[in-house]
């Protein structure tokens, strides 16, 4: 049965019963039906499960579901509310997506980076993303996408 927690998920207030040892990643995927957040390693090494908690990126595989009680959560599914985020658009245009498994986590991180720093240097981009692994792209077009998104006016970021 567990304990009832309530939080804002992608702009909507949600309530759910969770066990004390239940991880946010599992609650999102199994109880909320939001499978865009990925299980890659389960131990915080790959970054595929990254979500925004109160605007900051966290690894949902290392976050207890209980800890999001009363907070605001954004997953990849909730990122584009009315229109695509600039970073999503540049990902499409630059061919930054291959298998797409790391993509949600990387887009969430890029969004967070651009919110904190509107015009990061290439090295700052690389430093910020070093915890997100991608095995397909060699990161070339991912970095290109973020550089291009950074150059643009980013009011909503």
């Amino acid at each position, binding site marked *: 049965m567990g304990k009832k927690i309530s939080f804002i998920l992608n702009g909507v207030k949600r309530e759910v019963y969770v066990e004390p040892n239940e991880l946010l990643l599992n609650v999102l*995927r*199994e109880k909320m039906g*939001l*499978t*865009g*957040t*990925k*299980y*890659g*390693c*389960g*131990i915080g*090494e*790959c970054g*595929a499960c990254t979500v925004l908690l109160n605007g900051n990126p966290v690894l949902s595989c290392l976050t207890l579901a209980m800890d999001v009680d009363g907070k605001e959560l954004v*997953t*990849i*599914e909730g990122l*584009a509310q009315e229109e*695509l985020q600039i970073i*999503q658009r540049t*990902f*499409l*245009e630059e*061919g930054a*997506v*291959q*298998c*797409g*498994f*790391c*993509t*949600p986590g990387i*887009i969430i991180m890029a969004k967070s980076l651009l919110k904190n720093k509107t015009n990061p240097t*290439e090295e700052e*981009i*690389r*430093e910020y*993303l*070093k*915890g*997100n*692994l*991608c*095995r*397909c*792209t*060699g*990161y*070339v*077009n*991912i*970095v290109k996408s973020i550089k291009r998104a950074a150059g643009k006016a980013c009011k909503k970021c």
Partner: protein
Amino acid sequence: MTETREVTAERGPFFFKRELGKEEGEYKLVGREIERPDAFSKIMGLTKFTADRLTEDVCFGKIVRSKYPHALIKRVIVDEALQIKGVLAVITAKDVPGENQIGYAIPDQPLLADKKVRYIGEPIAIVVAENEYAAEKGVEAVKVEYDPLPAVFDPLEALKPEAPKVHEKGNVALTTIIRKGDVEKGFKEADVVVENIYYTQRQEHAYLEPEAAIAYPEGDGIRVVLCTQSPFLVREFVSRVTGYSQSKIKVIGAPAGGAFGGKDDMGPMVASKAALAAIITKKPVAIILDKEETFVASNKRHPAIIRYKSGATKDGKLTAVEIEIIYETGAYANRSPFVLWRATVHSAGPYVVPNAKVDGKSVYTNKVFSGSFRGFGDPQIHFAAEQQMDELAEKLGIDPVEFRLRNVLKEGTRTVCNQLLEESVGMEETLKKVAEAANWKKKREELKKYRKGSKVRGIGVACAYHGISTSRGVPDWSAAAVLLNEDGTITYRSTITRLGQGSLIGHAKIVAEILDIPLEWVHIEEPDTSASPNARPTHGSRGLMTGGTAAADAALKLRRTLIKLASELLNCDEKNVKLENGKAFCALDPSNKIEFSELAKETYQRGYQPAYYGFYFVPRRYFDPETGLGVAYCVYTYIANIVEVEVDKETGEVKVLEAYTGADVGKAIDPGLIEGQMQGALAQGIGYAISEEVAFNDGKIINPNYTDYIIPTVKDVPRKVKVVIIEKPYSSTAFGAKGVAEAALIPTAPAIANAVAHATGVRVRNLPLTKEKVCFKLKEGKK
């Protein structure tokens, strides 16, 4: 030796120009970069990978694995596990209704070990439970009683007569051979001879998505959804294990979160277990490996030991090679016959070598089995071949690029297997273009200035070639289906799978180009063995080349039907009917036209066939396995990489600063997708060269995670990467396309090793080039 060629239809660029009545420049999709149609759902987090399809009724299967590298199984005690709440069944070898055999080419590998285990992590039993937690508890509760046996972990040890036998028939899984010309004479003619031993390590695929399969009992059959590279191969194995006829098994290929060969081998193994569990419990069952299991129990790139002797004359011509290859296959042969043959027939690199003696051995040890991994045996052998080339060049005082150019395969020359190369041989042009892009000559001189201080720089080159499709005389074909719907849209079916590479996007582009309709009108169906024709595996860089040619065959058949129909409707001679931008019109009077949707409706109304099966059979010729001579592959992709590195002489750290990679791809159906493949393969090659190595302690993998097994992060890849695409079309395939997915990885490690040698004067012949190894070599060099 006979060299008769099987007759195949010519389908290359000239054929398509003629058939479509267009010049290449007029193509709207082929040759042009497009925005990937599958990317939108990925950036929205909506793509459904296998594990994203779990529903509440799905049970979980977890695997009991061997704790010993080599032991007899005395007993498997399952009673306690069965007492756990939620546990539905514990399945062992005796419960397998069909054959308990999963060996790919050699029947040496059980699905569930019964008599003996041969590596740590080998599956022994499957615990099926209503939830994951109960399944995990169940795994802990299963007791396996072992009788440990002496184990062997080193391939050279395994070859000794007194070594423990991994398999009854001995530790050599198979051998390969090439005997060409007279090697002794060749070395006599040589002015310089270089001989070295090279060592390469086990590499883990490390795709982010772990292996997963969900099996559903359905009527009197079964449906399996999984990330796989070959739905039909999965079906074959599920049939073998369950005893179900193939017609009662439906396999759906879900998008994979990376595969790189790993899911080619693992797909059938994971799917068979899930299917077995579903049949026995009569419930849908998911088997999803956790990351540690993936590291411990999935196939790896074969480690290799290669003794390589090569000779050249003072004017820079190769005279002979003598090569001994040992590929460690681990506990089971798996794909070794194919991997070792590929390595053997590519062993001289993309060069003309008149005399060759090559002997390959695949050796069993008590470690996790080796298997398919991007490059499939070629990265190891090129690591040796391409360093040999640099050493010969150095001894001869010839520039390494120049030395290679004097020996490269060209049209009309013969490979190490004596295969006459008749067409589509772009090695020379690829190397020249890549050298030009990298500004090779100037850089090679300039970087000599970076020799002072602790950080030094160098630039290195390596070439490679890679046969596409299956090797030797092994038949290969592909199929596809095109259905014209009544509204003019197209339903496209193939079982080439979606691994991130985008082969099916290439197929759709080919279909849309041939029909001259917008790409959005072609809907790609999910690969499904019950509905899609057998396109055969998505491996060997064949997904686009063979699958796309089958797609073209189907689309051309539909095109011819539509032209005939339009001729009737427009009252216009067939030769004057044009298909353009989703319309058909008469060239004599363009206002006499009909919309594609109308044409589609009329296809049905007038009794024309609306659906077509496309088929492509890959040209093959004679190959003699007794001498290793003959036609090894129908066609090859040629690759050249140049890298600039910085070596920290204090720490031994190697950094790749810039990388240039080029390939002759036949025809680029989508240059953007090709760039993506080459950039990714390059990064995987950098990991292979510098940081990646599966490490063992007494047969147990000690780095089964991303913290200890280091794949490149965004900080570890070069800041400058340039891809060069060369097109030497192949006359047998759609628009002349060849394969490219594996290409750029193959010469990456030797290019880096050659650059390190240029920077430091020290040569590392042992992968990966870790800080320790480079440091040690530098110290050794100083003495």
